[in-house]
């Protein structure tokens, strides 16, 4: 998918004026933070678990090569296959090859951010395989030909009416006059339509929240059960996973699972948490005959050992974007690619380059709310600042901003010059602004004054007044 991250400002502007989106975002802003806070309050050990989760992931990253090997051994020992893909193209080709070998016409899909990252659906369609998204939110955006705007709730940007319209336009064999005003009727319709697709598919593709090295198991976490139907009813189960999904043991998995649902949706535990280990066993009466784990690198190995390594602890809960005041007013599409919000701001430049994604780590006030709710204690603002350092070194920010900043720094490093400038300017602006106490407009401050006044300075600088006071009392 072509990123539009370069156009973040324009995307954001459009988003601010999109009434449906704003209504949807309003629901998110009041919903998720409250739910998360409530469920965290019920678990006194939550913060201690965050520390442990961080330690587990840091340990895995320091030994990632070995854990991947052990995982692979265990997958193979149980009759599964592991595929290693350096790039999106290799991953796409790997998946297509399996589908072709099995003569797959349709594949059902559970939600997979890796699938989005490699633009798998478009590729399969171009090659004669029809992918059917089964997560309700993913299904909705698939029929609308949109991208997910949130990593947990992909259709979060839509209101009910938009979804009903899309169902009417797509489910043509149903009565056009049927009532679709309630979410329950939309859900019931999706269930009926998709149930048929589950049975028809030859291959089921899911993501993986975690890969357990000890057992060679992959884990998915859903509320709908779609991932389970996707992987149980077909000839083959393909798991798309990026390298850093490894965890050592089932006990380590349990620790991380305690953090995931609470952080993502404010639930104690997701409805369906499922471990898949190999294909069906010889005497099983259901389950896929083949089990494939497709590992994608796509730049993760290069992030290890850099100042961005901590980002690889991410368990894709979405808490950061749920709490981000910027995401909360512009939504996910503004970020222009697969991963939005604070985690997207850090991760996206590692995957598609800071030239393309430079706006993302800049569009933050560093309020720190994301880091405060991240279950893996990822220092998101710090890493956004590291991106800004790289952009500064490469002179990627707009020249007027750069010159203004250098000018400020030049003056601030020279106290006598600074004193002179501030004493003068505070007097001038204070005098001009005195009648009203504020400026409705000011040269060079158009961005600010378009929407708000600029309060006038009091007319003397503190340092000059203090110097006077000291002279008087001397």
């Amino acid at each position: 998918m072509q990123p539009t991250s370069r156009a973040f400002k324009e995307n954001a502007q459009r988003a601010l004026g999109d009434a449906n989106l704003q209504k949807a975002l309003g629901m998110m802003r009041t919903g998720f933070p409250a739910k998360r806070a409530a469920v965290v309050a019920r678990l006194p050990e939550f913060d201690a678990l965050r520390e442990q989760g961080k330690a587990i992931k840091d340990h895995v990253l320091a030994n990632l090569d070995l854990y991947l090997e052990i995982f692979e051994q265990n997958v193979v020992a149980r009759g599964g296959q592991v595929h290693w893909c350096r790039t999106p193209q290799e991953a796409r080709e790997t998946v297509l090859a399996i589908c072709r070998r099995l003569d797959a016409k349709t594949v059902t899909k559970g939600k997979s951010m890796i699938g989005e990252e490699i633009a798998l659906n478009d590729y399969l369609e171009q090659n004669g395989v029809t992918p059917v998204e089964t997560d309700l939110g993913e299904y909705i955006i698939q029929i609308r030909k949109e991208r997910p705007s949130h990593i947990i709730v992909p259709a979060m940007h839509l209101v009910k009416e938009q979804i009903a319209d899309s169902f009417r336009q797509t489910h043509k064999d149903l009565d056009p006059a049927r009532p679709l005003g309630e979410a329950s009727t939309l859900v019931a319709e999706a269930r009926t339509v998709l149930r048929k697709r589950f049975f028809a598919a030859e291959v089921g593709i899911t993501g993986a929240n975690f890969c357990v090295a000890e057992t060679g198991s992959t884990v998915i976490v859903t509320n709908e059960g779609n991932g389970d139907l996707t992987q149980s009813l077909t000839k083959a189960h393909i798991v798309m996973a990026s390298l850093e999904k490894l965890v050592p043991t089932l006990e380590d998995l349990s620790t991380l699972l305690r953090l995931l649902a609470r952080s993502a949706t404010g639930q104690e535990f997701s409805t369906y948490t499922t471990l898949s280990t190999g294909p069906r066993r010889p005497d099983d009466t259901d389950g896929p005959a083949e089990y494939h784990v497709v590992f994608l690198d796509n730049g993760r190995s290069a992030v290890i050992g850099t100042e961005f390594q901590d980002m690889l602890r991410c368990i894709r809960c979405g808490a950061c974007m749920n709490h981000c005041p910027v995401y909360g007013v512009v939504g996910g599409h503004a970020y222009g690619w697969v991963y939005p919000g604070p985690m997207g701001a850090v991760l996206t430049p590692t995957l598609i380059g800071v030239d393309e994604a430079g706006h993302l780590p800049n569009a933050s006030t560093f309020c720190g709310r994301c880091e405060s709710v991240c279950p893996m204690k990822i220092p998101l603002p710090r890493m956004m600042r590291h991106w800004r350092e790289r952009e500064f070194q490469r002179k990627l920010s707009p020249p007027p901003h750069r010159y203004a900043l250098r000018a400020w720094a030049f003056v601030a490093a020279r106290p006598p010059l600074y004193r002179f400038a501030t004493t003068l300017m505070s007097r001038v602006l204070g005098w001009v602004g005195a009648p009203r106490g504020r400026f409705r407009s000011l040269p060079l401050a158009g961005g600010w004054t378009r929407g708000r006044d600029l309060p006038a300075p009091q007319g003397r600088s503190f340092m000059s007044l203090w110097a006077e006071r000291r002279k008087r009392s001397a």
Partner: protein
Amino acid sequence: MSEARGQILGAIRRSLKRGPLDEPERAAVAARLAAHERNLVPARAASLDHRGQVDLFQRMAEEVQATLVRVTSAAEVPAAVADYLSLHNLPSRLVVTPDPQLDDIPWSARPMLEVRRGRAEEADQVGVTACFAGVAETGTLMLLSGPQSPTRNNLLPDTHIVVLRREQVAASYEEGWSRLRAARRGADGSLDLPRTVNFITGPSRTADIEQRVEVGVHGPRRLHILLIDDGASS
């Protein structure tokens, strides 16, 4: 493929500024895996006695819209199922997994119930399964796939009834894993997991539409738990 594998592993090692781990380092990782130690287990369930854990399991399951009824023996299960079905106006045709844990249920005590033992099919509306454990911490059921417990029986029927025995209630997920490790030791002493381990907490739901919770999306819209509790202390 092995070229990609080698390159990826090599890239990871280069980033970590080292070659492959040496023997002591590999042994340390292997030891960590073999020990599979528990991390912090919250006190919520672990601090309770077993009776308290069973009560907690019920409260947590009911919080997420599962329903739970206690019976005192397997003999009472057919009546409890029949009552539940008529309460919700559900058909009296059931698919029951061939799970040996359900063999002692005298279905003939309720002749109105049409019981088929087997794998669930598309047309099945009500399914009955057993389970491996119930995790008190979050009211979560732990179910294993197997020749006599196909995974699809947990997901296809609109109504899922689970027979849970009091002894199966465990405090935590870690306790569930310990029991599974003990029950399923493979030939080489390692854990022999089945194809699927399902942790199920309440009925299927979504909040994808305006963040309103709706049940019965793809999995069952009803999860009913029959807890066989003979009232004896642990």
